[in-house]
């Protein structure tokens, strides 16, 4: 019996993956454990190893194909085994990532919410009764997902649909991710010169998550200025102590992470997530650190940062960032954060308001530290390095006062960094 090579589930909430690259091709020999192909997931590219040794045949999925998890994409035949097509060795419907065929996707999410379009739109199956009910209720069938065999839409599916539509506010329809804004159409009409880039998995995930966040989480923002001088002095002391040891230098960002963690430990009510009918209060501070990567953004998590020393944090951050950039993070490493830190200071940004990473309830946006004149205790101007921070809060979990308390604590820790050393 040939060994089936399936598209494995490598991520939580993953229902399908796109084949990013094949390392082996039809007829090549493969060894168990050898890299066979790469899957592109929400956040990263995952390498899939060969489940067996032999020759690769009936490769049914090609680069760019989106394949449901568990579906076979190839078979490995042992030496001497008769090479016959196993059941299911037909290429799946070559559904490339939907975004690559924008025309096909477009009618599906027209904002006018037309009732039943032409037949089961885009080849979906719909029972006659479902069509009838959809027409009666004014439901767009293309927005309904079918629970029947082969994705068939039944009456029950149509009747369940309005519940989701009810929840979404009218504004939500306009923000519908993936929807055409008409930019290309206008450009074409006006004869503007342009080029297009297909929306890939990561971009699409960013788009949908942040759109969802921005439109469903009640954000409010607290701003503060923080003097960095004391922190920078401590940093210099640390780095000079490390000199000659070959260890990585501590960065300001590392210290800010530590400060965030410590502040969360001191104000635990703010270390929580909204979960519908529950609020999840984390025991530890898991700091998601925004890392800019090619074409996007990833937020690897420093787990339980409040109990880690600064060196550990520093090394971890460096490692996470590097692997994030090369797409080698595992899903566990970018999920399960309780707080986010985003620093655009190195780009010269004075201040900004970040969008919360759901299900976290706060994100601290840090700008560039610049030299400014501030009044001292006597009211005389003194030169200080001032950094503007903005704390975005999810009002469902963090009220104004709570957010303010946390921000005050954070500022205290940064301006009196020795306190960060305490547990």
């Amino acid at each position, binding site marked *: 019996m040939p060994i089936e090579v399936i598209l494995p589930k490598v991520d939580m909430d993953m229902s399908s993956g796109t084949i990013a690259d094949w390392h082996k091709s039809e007829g090549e020999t493969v060894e168990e454990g050898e890299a066979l192909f790469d899957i592109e997931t929400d956040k990263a590219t995952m390498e899939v190893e060969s489940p067996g040794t032999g020759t690769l045949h009936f490769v049914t999925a090609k680069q760019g194909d989106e394949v449901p998890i568990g579906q076979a994409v190839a078979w490995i035949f042992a030496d001497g085994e008769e090479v016959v097509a196993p059941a299911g060795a037909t290429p799946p419907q070559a559904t490339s990532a939907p975004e690559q065929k924008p025309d096909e996707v477009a009618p599906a999410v027209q904002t006018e919410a037309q009732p039943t379009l032409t037949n089961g739109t885009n080849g979906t199956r719909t*029972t006659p*009764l479902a069509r*009838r009910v959809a027409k009666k209720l004014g439901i767009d069938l293309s927005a309904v997902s079918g*629970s*029947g*065999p082969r994705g068939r839409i039944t*009456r029950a599916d149509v009747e369940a649909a309005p519940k989701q539509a009810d929840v979404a506010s009218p504004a939500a329809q306009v923000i519908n991710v993936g929807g055409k804004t008409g930019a290309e159409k206008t450009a074409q009409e006006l004869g503007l010169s342009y080029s297009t880039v297909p929306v890939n998995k990561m971009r699409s995930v960013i788009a949908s998550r942040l759109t969802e966040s921005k439109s469903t989480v009640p954000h409010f923002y607290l701003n503060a200025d923080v003097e960095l001088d004391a922190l920078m002095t401590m940093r210099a002391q640390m780095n000079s102590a490390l000199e000659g040891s070959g260890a990585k230098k501590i960065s300001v960002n590392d210290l800010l992470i530590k400060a965030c963690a410590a502040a969360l430990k001191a104000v635990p009510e703010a270390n929580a997530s909204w979960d519908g009918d529950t609020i999840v209060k984390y025991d530890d501070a898991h700091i998601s650190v925004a890392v800019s990567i090619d074409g996007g953004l990833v937020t690897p998590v420093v787990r339980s940062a409040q109990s880690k020393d600064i060196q550990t944090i520093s090394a971890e951050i460096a490692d996470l960032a590097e692997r994030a950039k090369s797409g080698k993070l595992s899903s566990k490493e970018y999920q399960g954060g309780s707080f986010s830190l985003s620093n655009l200071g190195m780009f010269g940004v004075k201040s900004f308001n970040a969008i919360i990473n759901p299900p976290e309830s706060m994100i601290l946006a840090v700008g560039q530290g610049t030299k400014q004149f501030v009044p001292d205790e006597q009211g005389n101007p003194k030169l200080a390095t001032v950094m503007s921070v903005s704390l975005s809060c999810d009002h469902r979990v963090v009220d104004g006062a709570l957010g303010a308390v946390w921000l005050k604590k954070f500022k205290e820790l940064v301006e009196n960094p020795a306190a960060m050393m305490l547990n």
Partner: protein
Amino acid sequence: MNAPVNTADLETVEMSYSEAIKDAMDIALGSDERVILMGEDIGVYGGAFQVTGDLVHKYGEERVMDTPISELGGAGVAVGAALTGLRPIFEFQFSDFATLAMEQIVNQAAKVRYMLGGEVSVPVVMRFPAGSGTGAAAQHSQSLEAWLAHVPGLKVIQPSTPHDVKGMLLQALEDPDPVMIFEHKLLYKTKGMVPQGYYTVPIGKAEVRREGTDVTIVATSIMVHKSLAAAEELQKAGISAEVIDLRTIRPIDPETVLASVEKTSRLVCVYEGVKTLGIGAEISAMVAESHAFDFLDAPILRLGGSDNPIPYNPELEKASVPQVDGIVASVADLVKGKI
């Protein structure tokens, strides 16, 4: 023609399916001199399935006629007699032997009226003991009602209860056209309440035996009983099945079936005849062609006999036709959206 009778006014008595048939024939022989019975061994032997019983003692050999083993000739004699003023009831010993008489049934009985421009009628009744389950094997166990129902000019009925078989046989004797009655052998001993005296049950009208909301099961003959048993089981699983006893195969009652499908949005046909090209195919197509199509929320399912002659071995024999377990499983799958 007898006046319609309100059965609510009649006393009922419990009797078996075969006793009910005999009762009908007794009433007919006693009230209409044109009625005669013809068949093999229906006289002193009482009929292969003991349906005619002692009728010969009551009415004599000229009214209860034993024929030689001549299905073709005998059926033809019945046709000729019906054509010229008698009301014969011809009993085939097994429905399988209809094959020997197909010429007279299909080319003559069904067509004489039409070929003669409506100048004559052929009011012949033919009775066929049918179906499997007695270990009689391939040539004595068939369900050929679909063959005859395919022929315009014939009427084909499959009563499933003692009440219905008596009433429909009496109705058949009122009918000026050829009526073919398929009686499942395993029903002969089943009992039910039957009104005493004369009454009729309409030909061409189906009956809802059990009301339900999740799925319509259209069944015939013994499959009505299996479907009702299945419906009980299904109810325990929270599935509400409506069971329709089709009763007449030609003409099928479209109104009852379509109204039910519109209500439940799902249809399962259960019949003993071979599934392929059987009556379930006709019912399915009839529904799919009709306005009820727009109310279907699932594919239409047929449960029928398998594509093999009825085997001798009892387990194989049972496996060749739908059984309660199979009906339950298939209907459940359909309602749960697995099909």
